[in-house]
């Protein structure tokens, strides 16, 4: 199980290399980043809170479900917490498989469940104001399409 919750940044190149192995033909990576000032409604920073202990359990459970569904050689899930600025990396999911379809689908599956089940909360800063981000129905929809 390769699940990490950390304040420090991560190195996508090193994580990709770590997923490589003799039996791997394809690696799918997803990196979520903080959208910047210009894109949006003026977010100047973001703070990520989580539930230590439960977060890791949930991420490991999601990883185990992905491994049960697809033939995966390796999985990495990294999620940062604390205060992040626009452009910074928040999350990375990486999956390695002999086949590209398994790598792609499992990475998307993990992201969809992470978004709805892993106990993280985002607060956005706009100037001096802090606002808790509200959950989106579209994330529930994204998760629910895996249940057939």
């Amino acid at each position, binding site marked *: 199980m390769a699940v990490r919750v950390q304040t420090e940044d991560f190195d996508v190149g090193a994580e990709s290399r770590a997923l490589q192995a003799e039996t791997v033909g394809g690696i799918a990576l997803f990196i*979520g980043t903080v959208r910047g000032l210009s894109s949006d409604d003026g977010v100047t920073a973001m703070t*990520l*809170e*989580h*539930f230590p*202990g*439960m977060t890791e*359990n949930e991420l490991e459970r999601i990883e185990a479900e992905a491994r049960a569904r697809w033939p995966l050689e390796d999985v990495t899930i990294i*999620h940062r917490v604390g205060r992040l600025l626009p452009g910074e990396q*928040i*999350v990375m999911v990486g999956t390695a498989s002999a086949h590209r379809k398994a790598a792609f689908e499992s990475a998307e599956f993990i*992201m969809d469940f*992470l*978004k*709805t*089940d*892993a*106990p*993280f*909360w*985002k*607060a956005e800063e706009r100037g001096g104001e802090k606002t*808790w*981000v*509200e*959950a989106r129905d579209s994330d529930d929809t994204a998760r629910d399409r895996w249940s057939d």
Partner: protein
Amino acid sequence: MTLTIRYFAWMREHTGTDLETVPLPENVSSVGDLVPHLAAMSDGHAQALKNMRAVRVAVNRTYGDLDTPVAAGDEVAFFPPVTGG
């Protein structure tokens, strides 16, 4: 005969605490039984627990709901729908 209660995100800000230990009230055997007791602790608690449809619950770090049993020694966490990733 106590429970550990946790609050996260805006619920923590309303209650003013992230962690409290409360005596297990009499006749409480589920999360649903517990909520009115917690809501009575302060105006902030009442505010945080006002709309339980907007709240998620974990008992001993596993997702539950209002019907999930609670017993002495359990950790019950209340938090908004998650927004990570």
